[in-house]
């Protein structure tokens, strides 16, 4: 897996038909290297269908969009609109029923299970609404969880990330001894330990008060300034206001974009 933390000026976000054009251009002309330089995420005609009993649920319907590299992007929509499904597809935790999902130049639908896992480990950082920290581990150990099986876990980097999120003093505290905001900051540090070019956050401020949520968004903006891409699924209007590009989903369909 290739990695890229190269900072670039983000081109204007494109979606819908524009997304298709961009996708075609990457695949047909520019090649993967140039494609990675231009767009972090390209979804093309993505459909995701779940079977619930005898019923088919269409979580996403022919969704196409492009998210450029180095931006804070927000995905909004009511519950059941397909936001989390989209995030799962982009995060290589799921594969589309049809269509293509290209992230950082990788066509995820073509990867094997092991390759998807490796892709997640090296290219994607996750931040969850409920933090999903390991309660029995200390803060620094939680940061190191993604590198647990590495022969030489990046302790210096983990401590540096704790410093960055303001938890350096509390490196040996378990999540139970941290406040909600501290836990989410810890989760952000964990998401960055592998230095991924893409960070995906699912309602990261949904469980936090306004001020704490703002501090998390500040962290995200700092991450974007490093050239990384942050995609946030949210109901929070503050997120949408600060995002460079905003997508709105309803019933699995892209119904709007802005920035």
């Amino acid at each position, binding site marked *: 897996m290739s990695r890229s933390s190269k900072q670039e000026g983000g081109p204007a976000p494109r979606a819908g038909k524009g997304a298709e054009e961009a996708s075609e251009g990457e695949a047909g002309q520019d090649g993967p290297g140039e494609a990675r330089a231009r767009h972090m995420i390209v979804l093309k005609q993505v459909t995701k269908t779940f079977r619930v009993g005898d019923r088919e649920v269409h979580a996403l319907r022919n969704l196409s969009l492009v998210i450029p590299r180095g931006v804070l992007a927000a995905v909004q929509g009511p519950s059941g609109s397909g936001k989390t499904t989209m995030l799962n597809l982009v995060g290589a*935790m799921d594969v589309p029923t049809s269509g293509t999902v290209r992230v950082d130049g990788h066509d995820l639908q073509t990867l094997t299970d092991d390759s998807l896992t490796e892709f997640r*480990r090296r290219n994607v950082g996750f931040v969850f609404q409920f933090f999903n920290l390991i309660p029995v*581990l200390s803060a620094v150990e939680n940061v190191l969880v993604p590198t647990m*099986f590495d022969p030489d876990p990046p*302790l210096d980097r983990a401590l540096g990330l704790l410093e960055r999120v303001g938890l350096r*003093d509390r490196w*040996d505290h378990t999540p139970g001894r941290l406040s909600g905001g501290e836990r989410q900051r810890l989760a952000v540090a964990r998401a960055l330990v592998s230095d991924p070019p893409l960070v995906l956050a699912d309602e990261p401020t949904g469980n936090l008060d306004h001020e704490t949520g703002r501090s998390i968004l500040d962290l995200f903006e700092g991450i974007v300034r490093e050239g990384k891409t942050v995609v946030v699924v949210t109901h929070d209007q503050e997120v949408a206001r600060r995002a460079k590009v905003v997508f709105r989903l309803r019933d699995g369909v892209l119904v709007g974009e802005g920035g």
Partner: protein
Amino acid sequence: MLARADRGRGGAGGAKAAGSGAAAKVDREQVGFGPYGYVLAQSRSNPIRTGATVATVAVSVAFLIIVASLSVGLSGGTEVALLDYKAGTPVLPISDFAPTREGRHVGLLAPTLLDPSDVNAVRIRSQEVVGDPARVSVSPYTELVLGRRPLGGLGFQALRLVGVDPAVGLATPHLSYDRSKGLALGRVLSSPDGAQVVLGYRLWQERFPGVQPGSRITLRPENASLYFAPVGQLRARGEVTLTRIDALAGLELVGVLDRATETDLCAFVPLGYLANVTGAGATAAGPRCEAVSVEVRDPGVDLDALARELVGLSPRITSYYVTATRPSDASGLREGLRSSIYGWLVIAAVVTVAAMVLGVSNTALLSVAQRRREIGTLRALGLARREVLRLVTYEALFLVMMGWTIGFLSGHIVVSTMSGSHLQMEGIGLWLAPGRTVPSIAVGSLLAALLAALAGAALPGARAAGLEPAEALSGP
């Protein structure tokens, strides 16, 4: 290995200390985080679950260690006893046991338990002789086993014909003499004329109160009705069918036998005495003694001559069954015993491993179910399926190794304590062979534990590894 040093520290104080420069001094050894640290932390987080699993494994391993160690000790001890017996048993013609013969030996028909675990049954050759408490000495005696039959799950019941010096009597571990009290717990009785009767302790107490062992007693008519348990019927207390014998008047007795075993309600009389004096069981109410089974552990004995002598003991004896145990038979007996021991050992090992597998598997399954979301997070963060499987397996191995360590030490201590003990149960005295916890037992139990860990972790590990991250994270 893990950063645990400050977990119990007050949050503010810890933060202050770290923030004032101590934070820069994070001990890298403390934060050597990896899969083993993760497993250790998980195990510590749920002491009840961990303790239950460790206890299950420890008990199983201790059981295995005890059974194996006692079996090895028994096998070795029995082998030595058999070899000693084969090498040292003097050859005595059966006529030496006949009461009508002039000589120093008389016969004693004594039922004992011949259990594979009771090495004394074949080991006693040289015993303390205690006929006269003032003349304590050690001299050999000889025995022949007269018949043997299965006795429930306890082994065999044997009737032994024991040759003793009537002038001094004898004591064995079953027929012991307490010098300090001057009172026998078990005593062989002999009379100067060579006739010999052995009384159970309770019978002695009932019939001859106040009479000390070693006293000479002439049985008066009112005391001359003893009870005899027919050959092969002597079993545990309460199950003995007693037959009254009224033909003992005039017999002089010394001593008393064994108040601690199943024989204390019984009287034992020499085979020849029984045959010639009582008419071979021709009692008022009981069956006749018409058949004799003799097992001679001496390959040099002329079986035909022995049979004739047996029949000659009493005209009532009309049939006989004689077998001889040869050195090759002793070897076969030894191998059979060893096979039997190891057979039971294998069964014990299988049961033990199964218990451990179930214990580990149950714990791991519960753990995986409870940590479904956590496992989904690990998968989302990039841990491969095989790495999740390794985590579950490491946890099982950790628990099992803890249990094995405790179980091994406990089992070894129990074996050391039990070795050579004499357990006295209702009607049954059981000597435990010295157990030996040899290295192969330690290695074998360790391998069994490791096998149990791997087998027990297989299903929960597969379930954990099979979790799809999106599915696991979307659950409640």
